[in-house]
């Protein structure tokens, strides 16, 4: 059975972004991304979505909470 290269690439994009592919799979994914503008567009989208989700609306940790955590330490 012949596997559609774009379908195969769709399977590889997520683990590629997660840095979980083997060296062989990585080369395979990169070769396809270099030659296929359809998959490259989707790769760019997935990568930017990932960055966007990672940074979405994260307020810094409240300083009071930091102080509370330090207070939980075992007294010397």
């Amino acid at each position, binding site marked *: 059975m012949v596997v559609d290269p774009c379908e195969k690439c*769709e399977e590889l994009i997520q683990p590629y972004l997660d840095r979980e592919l083997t060296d062989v799979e990585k080369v395979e994914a990169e070769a396809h991304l270099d030659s296929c503008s359809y998959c490259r567009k*989707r790769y*760019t989208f997935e990568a*930017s979505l990932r960055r966007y*989700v990672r940074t979405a609306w994260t307020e810094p*940790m409240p300083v009071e909470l930091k102080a509370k*955590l330090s207070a*939980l330490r*075992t007294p*010397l």
Partner: protein
Amino acid sequence: MSEAQPETDARKIAEDARDRVRFEEEVLELSDQVYRVARRLVPTREEAEDLVQDTYARAFRSWRSYTPGTNLRAWLFRILTNLNIDRGRKQQRTPDLQPMEEGDYYLYNRLEESGAGEDEARVVERLSQDSIVDALASVPHNYRDVVVLVDIGDFSYADAAQILDVPIGTVMSRLHRGRRILKQSLAESAVAEAS
């Protein structure tokens, strides 16, 4: 020779105290990451703060169960996710999921349809920050835990498997499914915002 050796005992106590202080300092250095992940695991800021405090209280209490030289970050996040799972068991049940037929590119396709010709990297900017937060909250917690650990906590599949005490294949399938649910929810809110 069975007599106690005060010098040796004193040295041992001092070494123990030094190890504990070092452990506590290293654990506290991770607090921003713990808070960031906790903030996405539970719906409100108050719950996240409680979860983080409980995590640190337990970590400090059970510091001896940590083996020096092993992955401290994974050890600490395991406490966090276990506490959150216990909390989840008390408060909620995972709802039954509707079958999803759409592929990984569903969100991309929906956004592309509503903004032809736009640069792929900028398409996501049309999603509001609130919609991402809401979409993540809508992912059932089994799947959300994995998505948050890998996408926000930046853990490897193997570390996430160790933290959640599930096989690596389960991490991969929950991640796949969780991301699809997230993207489907984002697509729905993007369509709703556009209309």
